[in-house]
């Protein structure tokens, strides 16, 4: 086994002449929670899209638990135990909570090809367990997602990721559209994941949140990783200096 859960070497993504991501060297240790920060267009989301296979990288290598991987799409990444909470929620509005949690991997009572009978009871029970595990409070499991608040929907998306992710969770701005209490709820889920030792990559604009939650902060600027700092060794001003380019014009190796 490798000492890293995830490692990227020279990861690059060019859109035509634009170098959205350039030579990113990144590593994530077991149980570690890392925040990815940076200005808009710094390459944070591009970086995540290469890892989860939503886009195919221009150059570089990705190692997952020591072996090199080529994910053809998010489903392939998911099959390796990487769950992603996307900025635009991947939920079906007209389905209830258990159906959304098990979307695409429904539990089956009787296998009959496409007409396999759903095991609705088990899906419901496991949903309740998943919600208890992540301390998500959803008033009514049987109502459709459509009737829920943004925070509740986000919690369902995160509970889904947390329930199935065995090896790595990636969250892209999970609290960007949420209110104060809803944000606190999401942050509690993230703390719970830390206790369970599930590694996490968190993209966030919220420095207060980042300092509250993660072990290490990686700063992106103009498509390059310019800093990788342990939480204890840095502060908000320091991070902002890196984000804005006052500091760190040299590449950092993690």
């Amino acid at each position, binding site marked *: 086994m490798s000492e890293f859960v995830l490692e990227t070497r020279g990861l690059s993504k060019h859109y035509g002449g634009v170098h959205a991501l350039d030579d990113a060297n990144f590593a994530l240790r077991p149980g570690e929670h890392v925040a990815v920060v940076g200005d808009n267009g710094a390459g944070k989301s591009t970086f995540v899209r290469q890892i989860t296979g939503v886009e195919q990288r221009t150059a570089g290598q990705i190692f997952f638990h020591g072996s090199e991987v080529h994910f053809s799409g*998010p*489903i392939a990444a*998911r099959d390796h135990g990487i769950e992603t909470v*996307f900025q635009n*929620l*991947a*939920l*079906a*509005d*007209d*389905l209830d909570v258990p*159906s959304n949690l098990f*979307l*695409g*991997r*429904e539990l*089956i009572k009787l296998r*009959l090809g*496409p*007409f*396999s*009978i*759903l095991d*609705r009871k088990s899906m419901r029970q496991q949903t*309740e367990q998943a919600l208890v595990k992540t301390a998500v*409070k*959803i*008033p*009514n*499991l049987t*109502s459709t997602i459509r*009737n*829920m*608040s943004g*925070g*509740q929907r986000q*919690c369902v998306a995160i509970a889904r990721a947390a329930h199935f992710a065995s090896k790595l969770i990636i969250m892209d701005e999970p609290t960007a559209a949420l*209110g104060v*209490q*809803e944000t606190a*709820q999401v942050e509690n889920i993230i703390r719970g994941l830390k206790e369970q030792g599930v590694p996490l990559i968190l993209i966030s604009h919220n420095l207060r949140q980042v300092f509250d939650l993660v072990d290490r902060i990686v700063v992106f600027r103009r498509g390059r990783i310019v800093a990788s700092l342990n939480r204890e060794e840095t502060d908000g001003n320091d991070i902002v200096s890196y984000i804005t380019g006052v500091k760190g014009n040299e590449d950092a190796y993690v």
Partner: protein
Amino acid sequence: MADKQNHGIGGLKYDQSKTPWPPETGVFVALVLITVVFEVLNRMHGTSFLFNTRAAVDAIFNKPRLDIIILQVSITGIIALGATQVMVAGGIDLSAGSVVGATAMVAMSFAQTAMVNGHANPKALFGPWAMDLPAVDPILVGLACGMLAGMINGVLIAYTRIPPFIATLGMMLSARGAADWWSNGDPVSFPTQGYANLANGDVLKYLTFGLLSWPGENPAVLFIVLAILLSLVMKYTVYGKRCYAIGSNEAAARMSGINVDRHKVLVYTIAGMLTAAATIMLTSKNLSAQAGMGMMYELDAIAMAVIGGVSLNGGRGTILGTVLGALIFSVIISGFTSIRLDAYYQEMVKGAIIVGAVVLDQWRQRRNASRT
């Protein structure tokens, strides 16, 4: 869930004992109201819409009318079942009516009898090899024909990514053309007794060993059986769940690992097969097939689904809703006939009801959205 009240995010309270009305409630109330209106209108003329008024007949209900209410929608109703699952999955099928025409011609060609009243069948399309075949042959040929049309629709929509409206519009024109081409526009008639019995026999008596009897209502029996079956499929199987997921958020379904393209092909194929089943009932009932059969059936089917609360945007709607929508459709037709109103008025009112149902649905959605 042990406690009755849970606290949601932000301290929201939710009372579990208060479950919302099922979405079909409104459709059912509308059906009852429309029925009551026709009953009152009939009473004003000294007759009754639903109840028996003839002294010579010992019955509470006007059974012939109840029978016709179900029978006259059972063929378009079966098509509407297929249209419902297509619409739930976010698509639309405009080709159903033309597929009825094509399937009718093809299936009937294999259901012909050799001798009619002692003479050779004047409408015989093929040689003796295709005469007096057992009824199962035209059934299989017909189902295959509908299946093929549906599969072409599905493959076009799933793999070329053209809008369902365009793909099925193309099939609508092509299938009607194929129906005309099949026999150069001539009707195909004189089916075997076995084929005629499919719709005109008494399957209920056969299935219940004489306990129940409903002669000549086989299309209605098939409609009810298929409605129950498809209702269970939509509710309790992966197939149904994925229809709702795809219609609700196709990108999310794709991202979740659902094979959306393959599912779409399956959905349209099943719609085609249901259309074929309806066609077999129709030709068996009519004892004849014409290329023009099933004209506008697709719109009737879509209208029934829409009246029953199936959303044109996908993701919402149930089979039960569509069945209730079909009954509303039928009660209106029978109601107008019972008060001796012209068929022209029927068409006009049908149009108004379809528009009204969508307006009501939009209004209901907006109200729900503003409440949460």
